[in-house]
């Protein structure tokens, strides 16, 4: 019997606010342990949390961008459990009344269309600290606690169980990462832990509607890790069900190195978190005016931009996907497109030269030294035949290095193309005079040597001869000699 996987994801995204969610401490990654702390995030007796409005704004941005309903009134709750990296003995989160509910994102359905993955809720919470065991400064039988991360704002994005393959989960995660980065609310870096993902997965007979017993997968630290862990778990559950067994509801930890998921000890997962509303924080109110203000500040979103590009510029879907992945690249392209008569040419330049440069240098397009206007000028010079395409690339590189204008780069490199008919005629005459054996072959009807002769023209002109005019001239001269 074929089985269909049913997958839901819980994604935690660290919000890129300057300060923590309930105190004024900084949120920089990789700082000296316990250097970004204060009495509040240390949970010292008598301290109280005060909500950072920026964190709320970021969460609402994400909520609006993925079509959620923003709750005018939401409630912070305490999630109670003991752990050394949890200074207060509880985590402030949202439970019964989250900030955002009922949204969706679109992922490619594999047939050129879009499939909606529903988002159940997005809520705000604080991050915990880190227990440190395996650093050089930790002694044997010792555990140290780094509280720096404590109180870093998080949003938890909970999907509905709408995904049916590891690939779909991968696409969904990719979409979420694109969105958080696009909105500037999270850097989306899974390796540094600013984006984290847990998965719920169950199997059911294909074509049925019920839900099987699910397991929870944790500790996946890369996008590929999520995909691999899900594939592993689908195979494991399939084996169990096919042999007539029953899946046990449990939490499994993905071990990237061993390529397998192992059950968590049951002691670690048997938690009653005793959630209750946090009496230290009044209900969070996001009134219509504030919501409208945040909505008005949202940038054009990737899907809307893709639609606009499709209709205004008729770009291929593949190009749109590549160019829209990153907000900076997309904004750059969006500024470039109206300046270039052929949109496809503009797209090719960004996908080719621009992205290659950024990848090679691991650079951000916001620090890019060639503005869209300058790149448009390079493309225009090529179109007008003033420089060749290959010269254009040299000009582009020169501009990247020295930051000078396209004209100045052309002059500096001496790449101005020879289009003057008289100048070209004497060049062609010289090549004919210097290569009489090949010219004779052409006159004998062996037209394939034409390419060789044109190559000589380009060589002699140091690449500056306008190829179209030079070809026309060479043809006319040789035919005249017949």
């Amino acid at each position, binding site marked *: 019997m074929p089985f269909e996987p049913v997958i839901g994801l819980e994604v935690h995204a660290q919000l890129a606010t300057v300060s923590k969610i309930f105190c004024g401490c900084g949120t920089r990654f990789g700082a000296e342990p316990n250097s970004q702390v204060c*009495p509040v995030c*240390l*949970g*010292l*007796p*008598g*301290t*109280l*949390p*005060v*909500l950072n409005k920026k964190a709320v704004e970021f969460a609402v941005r994400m909520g609006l961008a993925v079509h959620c309903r923003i709750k005018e009134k939401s409630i912070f709750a*305490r999630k*109670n459990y*003991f752990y*050394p990296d949890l*200074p*207060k*003995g*509880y985590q402030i989160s949202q439970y019964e009344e989250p900030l955002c509910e009922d949204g969706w994102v679109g992922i490619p359905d594999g047939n050129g269309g879009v499939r909606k993955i529903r988002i159940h809720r997005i809520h705000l919470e604080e991050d915990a600290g880190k227990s440190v065991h395996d650093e050089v400064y930790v002694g044997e*039988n010792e*555990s140290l*606690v780094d509280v720096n991360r404590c109180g870093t704002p998080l949003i938890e994005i909970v999907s509905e169980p709408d995904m049916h393959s590891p690939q779909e989960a991968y696409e969904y995660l990719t979409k979420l990462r694109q969105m958080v980065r696009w909105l500037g609310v999270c850097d989306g870096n899974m390796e540094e832990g600013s984006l984290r993902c847990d998965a719920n997965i169950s199997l059911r007979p294909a074509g049925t509607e019920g839900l099987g017993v699910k397991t929870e997968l944790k500790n996946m630290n890369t996008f590929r890790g999520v995909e691999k862990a899900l594939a592993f778990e689908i195979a494991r559950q399939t084996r169990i069900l096919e042999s007539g067994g029953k899946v046990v509801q449990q939490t499994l930890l993905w071990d990237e190195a061993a390529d397998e998921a192992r059950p968590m000890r049951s002691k670690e997962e048997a938690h*009653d978190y*005793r*959630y*209750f509303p*946090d*009496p*230290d*924080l*009044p209900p969070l109110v996001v009134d219509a005016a504030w919501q409208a203000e945040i909505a008005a500040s949202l940038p054009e979103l990737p899907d809307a931009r893709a639609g606009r590009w499709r209709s205004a510029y008729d770009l291929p879907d593949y190009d749109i996907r590549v160019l829209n992945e990153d907000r900076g690249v997309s904004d750059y392209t969006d500024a470039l497109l109206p300046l270039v008569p052929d949109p496809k040419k503009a797209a090719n330049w960004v996908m080719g030269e621009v992205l290659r440069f950024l990848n090679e240098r691991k650079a951000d397009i916001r620090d890019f030294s060639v503005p869209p206007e300058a790149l448009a000028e390079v493309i225009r010079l090529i179109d007008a035949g003033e420089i060749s395409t290959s010269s254009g690339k040299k000009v582009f590189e020169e501009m990247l290095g020295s930051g000078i204008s396209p004209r100045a780069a052309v002059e500096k490199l001496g790449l101005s193309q020879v289009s003057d008919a008289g100048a070209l005629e004497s060049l062609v005459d010289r090549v004919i005079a210097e290569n009489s054996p090949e010219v004779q072959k052409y006159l004998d009807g062996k037209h394939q040597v034409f390419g060789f002769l044109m190559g000589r023209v380009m060589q002699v002109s140091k690449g500056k001869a306008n190829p179209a005019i030079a070809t026309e001239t060479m043809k006319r001269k040789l035919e005249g000699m017949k």
Partner: protein
Amino acid sequence: MTVPYHRFRKQLEDGESTCETTVVSFLAQIRAHESLNAFVTVLEDRALEKAREIDRKLAQGGAGSLAGMVVAVKDLFAMKHVRTTCGSRILERYHSPYDSAVVGRLEEEDAIVIGKTNMDEFGMGSSSENSAYGPVLNPRDPGRTPGGSSGGSAAAVAAGLAMTAIGSDTGGSVRQPAALTGVVGLRPTYGRISRYGLIAFASSLDTVGIFSSDVTDCAILLQALAGRDPRDATSSLLPVPDYAEALRSSVRGLTFGLPREYYGEGLSPEVGEAIHAVVSLIRESGGEIREISLPLTDYGIATYYLICTAEASSNLARYDGVKFGLRIDPEGDLRRMIEETRHEGFGSEVKRRIMLGTYVLSAGYYDAYYLKAQRVRTLIRRDFENAFRECDVLIGPTSPTTAFRLGEKSEDPMAMYLSDIYTVTAPLAGLPAISIPAGLDSRGLPIGLQLTGRAFQEENLLRAGYWIEQVRIRQTGCCQPA
């Protein structure tokens, strides 16, 4: 009992006294009354230094509104570089790295903190017997308790060891000891004074409270402490009125409500008679008295203990031996470290309440206990709203009996809880209430009269309290018991 602060301030300004000599004599009084066990820590050097500094300020001008006020602070307010124990073994050697809002305000206004007072551990108790530092004795009768949990603060004012004192009131912890020691005790509206640095017992009920020898001092201290604090999200934005103004206006026009439920079973006849005597005085003086009903009074104790234990179980989770305070580290096992630390560090009443609260919030019991208690809390609030349509101030006893003997109720938690019957409902509704001395019983023990007002109308309480105080002075020749 020494002179009230407002008279001492005149002496200071007239050059008849200095802060330094006054502090010296208070320190001598404290030593003479060491057996009362009112203080956990006496800040001798610090208070003397501060006194000299304020004497200089008084000479030069620019002294604050509390200049020279000798004040005792309950040992659950964080005070920088000073031991802050909360009456618990678990914080025996804990020194706070920051000042609570209250201590900060007191010192900004040039009050002199003379010491930290003894209390029921974490504010849990009604007799000040639940302290790791031994019980506090009632200065009126050393065989009896001063009430609790702020018993040390009440005893300090009653015995003349401080002019005023700061306590905290969760379910009566200021008003009940004020009644039992014969001083004035105010619980302001929830949100009127910042809780920042008040070490939490039950966050939705905890308020800063004021002890003084008369109503005028109470008004002066409230004026200095009330107001918005950005570090406490539950502190109110409402402007602070001029409380001295309230003392100048007459009680004419105020309607007093007499809750019929406050005069039933359990009320000592002598206490009832004393309250009725005051009620008669008010009526004779043209004040309006109306009998009203608070039908849910009987549910107050149960509701209060469900909510306060639930919140306490979470608030006290941070005492785990990881970052501060006591750590019992049996054999490097984390779980055992937390268990042993809490086992050794907390007293039995604290453990009882943590267990009750943990139970109340547990899966399967939450709806039946915590949620139901919250619903009743809403109904109790409505009860008061209805009552305040008919009157401005409620008048009744603070405690059903006068001071009880040491050990009398400490083995019977239920009897102890029931002594809070008149004080727990105002906190559930967030309302302000004040206890005013109203005579002595046949043993010469003080009787307290409680006035409860509308939210943020402390001025009505001060006005009525001041008037009662004046009438009693005229009638008995003294506002205080012998």
